[in-house]
């Protein structure tokens, strides 16, 4: 209380300091007057009385200053003074100021932009109650999951119910379906389908997270109490605002998914995006409805289906270790207690090895995190180096400027300005520059963020990721800005005040000792060159990676293939509905009949779309359960559309029907490894096992196809089999068309043809196979493009650095050069002398930068493809670029040196 009172009084004094000053003056004047009158009354004459009064009072100027210091605002006044002075100085050298501001804005902006991604993807907590108490059962990423008996990542619904009831370490546990349902839904009676992401969650999902509704209610346990009869959804704020126009009567609206109409019971808070960073479901539905929401994922609620993530909130005081122990005991007990547990030897071994680890859910789940944390860290490193170069540049500019100001500073020091005072002034100027640069940087970052987000999203819907400016980001930017100011402001300031006064007072231009007196400037240039080399080599490595990736053979021909998705689930077909197969056949036939279309086919997967994989058994061979084959369900013409060569056997035809022998085409590698002896045609294998609760299916091989990339460009060769959709139903999405001629025209005709068959079929994601393949190395493209951009910036800044320092040196040595020339030195010799100096600086930079680049190359190893971190081509290219840039930057000062007129130069001396 007293402190705030004091602050209030201080602030009053700050805002009314004119009045306080005049009050003080009047008071002191009165005092002296009264003393003088008292002395005169005691008999002194007027002059003696005045002197005595003044003497007894003391030095009024000093006292006034002391009183002002008492107010505690002296620093502010000098700061304003310094800032004003700094602004005037910046305005007087607009060129230098512009370059400094630009490089700062770029450096700080890039750092802020990358950090905002880093923050959103890796650092930020979920916007829920006490997120640090949340854990998830299991730490595996979804790609590594096989069909083991005892999955420690995905759980069944009955397991979840048991676990929730019996555990003693969590205050509550919730379950979410591991995938988001991409469905087409209809708001109210509308006939236009909306593409929607629906997340199915346990009834207590929102309570467990501690999230309430901004309107209506959230889901509750009752919504998840019995199967299939709770058609309610909570919608996201985005969906409410975008598709319902933020209608306050939102609770009167309904949403139809498949053939069920759902009541909208609430709207989630604006900041809530569920549990996965980088995803934002449009609606959350209770798991009780999972069976009827297309594409009917999670319908299967048997004891051993593996489909749910389980999230728990630790009870206060329960440690993670304790919770892990409890969870594991319960995990085994529950699995063993299920009456339908098939306790074969393999399954028991699985169970024995299984260990459930708890992963913190504080920051949510994220595919983005595993995908982008490495690139983001590398990019953060790159932009930090760019900032360092920018700082070195500015330090150099200021250094040159402060040397030019040496005389002015010497005069000020001679007039009694303290060293600290001058340093403070120079630092204030740097800070001013840094703050202006930081402000520009934030503006730049805001724009850069949008561009980056688009680059990452690559043609798909923009990833819902909040990369806006937040307190953590602001703190980061402020720290960077202030750090920058200190970094580039301190050195010039310290140097400027260490100069010998007399020498600087004598002449603005020193003698010939110039070169010896600028070691700092040279060190900065060398450092710039070294860092630039590091960035240039890195950029070359990433470019080569990108080139390598774009030349990876996919096994299929991605050119001239139009791809799109059709959501047949929106029609509300039930499983194994023959109408669905008939619809697919009709679409394929109609589209293939179009002019400009060579072939068209549906498929379950295309490229990098996940997989359905199982273990398999081959007669007379013992295969490990780890041998997994990836299945693709396709139309008859799929191989023709993709131009995957058939090596042996035949493709599917009319003879392969729902009742005929199950057949498959298998990949080359699979044939070679699993059926080594003799021709594979006609041999059989079995997928699905009673152990896993599936009906085993025996399949006969009818063909062998060339190996293709399935899950990504860099994956090793996979075992893949293709099965016809006439024998294995699949709620399709993918449709591929091989065409010739104009993409736009074909695309329109294909969509029209599909609509003419059924106008209500939702068509989405119309693009080309080439785009889809390119998207698989978005990461590498992003890094290659950004690293190239930043390397260019770095080289450019280094050039400016070299140019600045050399111009300055040439300027200082005008006299010396003049004498040399007067004594007969040739112009070319003078130019060579300057160039030689530049070459030395660049060579020194390269000598330091090369080992750093070699070391750095090792760090980036994980992000490279087909090129090692110590790639000699990249190193050579980096060195060549820097030498060229250095010589280019040095050319102008060298030419200027060679054109010095000896007469003019000597007149200065």
């Amino acid at each position, binding site marked *: 209380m*007293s402190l705030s*009172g*004091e602050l209030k*009084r*201080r602030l009053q*004094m700050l805002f009314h300091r004119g009045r306080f000053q005049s*009050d*003080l003056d*009047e*008071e*002191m004047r*009165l*005092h002296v*007057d*009264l*003393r003088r009158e008292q002395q005169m009354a005691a008999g002194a004459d007027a002059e003696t009385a005045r002197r005595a009064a003044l*003497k*007894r*009072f*003391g*030095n*009024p100027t000093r*006292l006034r200053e*002391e*009183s002002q*210091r*008492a*107010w*505690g605002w002296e620093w502010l006044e000098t700061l304003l003074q310094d800032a004003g002075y700094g602004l005037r100085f910046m305005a007087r050298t607009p060129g230098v100021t512009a370059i400094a501001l630009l490089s700062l804005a770029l450096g700080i902006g890039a750092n802020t932009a990358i950090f905002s991604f880093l923050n959103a993807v890796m650092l930020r907590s979920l916007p829920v109650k006490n997120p640090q108490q949340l854990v998830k059962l299991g730490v595996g990423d979804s790609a590594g999951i096989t069909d083991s008996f005892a999955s420690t990542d995905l759980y069944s619904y009955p397991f979840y119910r048991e676990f929730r009831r019996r555990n003693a370490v969590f205050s509550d546990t919730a379950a979410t379906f591991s995938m988001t349902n991409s469905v087409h839904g209809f708001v109210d009676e509308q006939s236009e389908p909306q593409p929607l992401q629906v997340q199915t969650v346990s009834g207590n999902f929102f309570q467990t997270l501690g999230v309430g509704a901004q309107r209506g209610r959230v889901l509750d346990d009752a919504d998840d109490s019995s199967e299939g009869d709770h058609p309610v959804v909570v919608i996201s704020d985005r969906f409410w605002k975008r598709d319902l126009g933020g209608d306050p009567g939102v609770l009167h609206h309904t949403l139809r998914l498949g053939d069920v109409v759902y009541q909208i019971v609430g709207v989630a808070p604006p900041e809530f995006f569920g549990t996965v960073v980088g995803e934002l479901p449009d609606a959350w539905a209770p798991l009780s409805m999972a069976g009827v929401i297309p594409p009917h994922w999670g319908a299967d609620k048997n004891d051993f289906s593996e489909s749910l993530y389980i999230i728990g909130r630790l009870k206060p005081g329960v440690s993670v270790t304790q919770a892990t122990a409890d969870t594991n005991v319960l995990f085994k007990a529950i699995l063993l207690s299920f009456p339908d547990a098939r306790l074969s030897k393999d399954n028991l071994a699985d169970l024995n090895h299984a260990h459930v680890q708890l992963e913190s859910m504080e920051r949510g789940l994220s595919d983005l995190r595993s995908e982008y944390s490495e690139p983001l860290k590398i990019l953060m490193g790159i932009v930090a180096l760019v900032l360092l170069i920018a700082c070195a540049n500015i330090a150099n500019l200021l250094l040159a400027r402060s040397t030019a100001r040496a005389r002015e500073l010497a005069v000020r020091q001679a007039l009694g300005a303290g060293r600290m005072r001058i340093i403070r002034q120079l630092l204030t100027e740097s800070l001013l520059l840094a703050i202006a640069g930081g402000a520009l940087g934030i503006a730049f970052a805001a724009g850069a963020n949008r561009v980056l987000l688009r680059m990452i999203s690559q043609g798909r819907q923009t990833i819902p990721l909040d990369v806006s400016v937040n307190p953590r980001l602001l703190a980061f930017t402020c720290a960077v800005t202030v750090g920058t100011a200190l970094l580039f402001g301190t050195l010039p300031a310290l140097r400027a005040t260490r100069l010998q006064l007399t020498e600087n007072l004598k002449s603005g231009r020193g003698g010939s000792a110039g070169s010896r007196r600028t070691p700092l400037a040279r060190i900065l240039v060398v450092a710039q060159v070294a860092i630039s080399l590091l960035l240039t080599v890195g950029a070359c490595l990433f470019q080569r990676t990108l080139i390598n990736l774009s030349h990876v053979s996919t096994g299929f021909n991605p050119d001239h293939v139009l791809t799109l998705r059709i959501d047949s689930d929106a029609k509300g077909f039930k499983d194994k509905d023959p109408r669905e197969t008939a619809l697919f056949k009709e679409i394929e036939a109609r589209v293939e009949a179009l002019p400009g279309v060579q072939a068209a086919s549906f498929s379950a997967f295309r490229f990098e779309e996940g997989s359905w994989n199982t273990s398999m058994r081959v007669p007379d061979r013992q295969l490990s359960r780890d041998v997994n084959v990836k299945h693709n369900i396709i139309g008859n013409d799929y191989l023709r559309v993709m131009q995957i060569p058939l090596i042996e056997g035949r493709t599917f035809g009319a003879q392969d029907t729902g009742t005929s022998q199950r057949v498959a085409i298998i990949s080359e590698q699979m044939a070679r490894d699993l059926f080594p002896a003799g021709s594979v045609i006609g041999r059989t294998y079995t997928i699905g096992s009673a152990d896993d609760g599936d009906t085993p299916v025996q399949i006969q091989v009818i063909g062998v196809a060339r190996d293709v990339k399935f899950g990504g460009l860099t994956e090793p060769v996979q075992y893949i089999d293709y099965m016809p959709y006439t024998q294995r139903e699949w709620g399709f999405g993918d449709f591929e068309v091989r065409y010739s001629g104009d993409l736009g025209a074909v695309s329109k005709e294909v969509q029209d043809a599909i609509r003419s068959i059924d106008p209500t079929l939702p068509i989405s994601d119309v693009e080309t196979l080439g785009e889809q393949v390119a998207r698989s190395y978005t990461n590498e493209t992003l890094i290659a493009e950004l690293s190239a951009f930043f390397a260019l910036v770095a080289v450019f800044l280094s050039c400016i650095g070299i140019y600045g320092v050399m111009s300055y040196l040439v300027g200082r040595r005008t006299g010396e050069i003049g004498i040399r020339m007067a004594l007969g030195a040739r112009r070319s010799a003078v130019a060579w002398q300057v160039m030689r100096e530049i070459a030395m600086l660049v060579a020194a930079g390269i000598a330091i930068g090369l080992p750093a680049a070699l070391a750095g190359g090792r760090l980036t190893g994980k992000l490279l493809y087909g090129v090692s971190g110590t790639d000699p081509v990249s190193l050579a290219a980096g060195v060549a670029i820097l030498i060229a840039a250095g010589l280019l930057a040095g050319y102008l000062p060298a030419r200027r040196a060679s054109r010095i007129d000896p007469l003019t130069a000597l007149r200065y001396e």
Partner: protein
Amino acid sequence: MTALIRRKAAADKSRDEIPPGTLYLLILKTLAARGRLHGYEIAEAILSCSDEVLQVEEGSLYPALQRMLIQGWATAEWGVTAGNRRARYYTLTLAGKRQLGLEISQFERVMGAIVRVLETA
């Protein structure tokens, strides 16, 4: 340019500088004893109360008074002197009275210690 500022006036032999740190104590005590005073009156009061022994560099009262205002130990208001001149009058606040108590006990502790040292010697 040579500095023409004399650094320190010769001390008046008949008067002693006040011990450092006791200026607040003197001002607080004076205000507590006499109520509402302006700066000159405070200086005069200190001088007369101490039988003209304690001399305050009179101007140094003012920075001290400014600090006391900020600390909230005293408030100030403008008034008119007996000679009909405008003067700023200072009054002690409750916080100022508390501070006086603190300063007195601190001073007595220090003085007591010094006296004990002198007596044992």
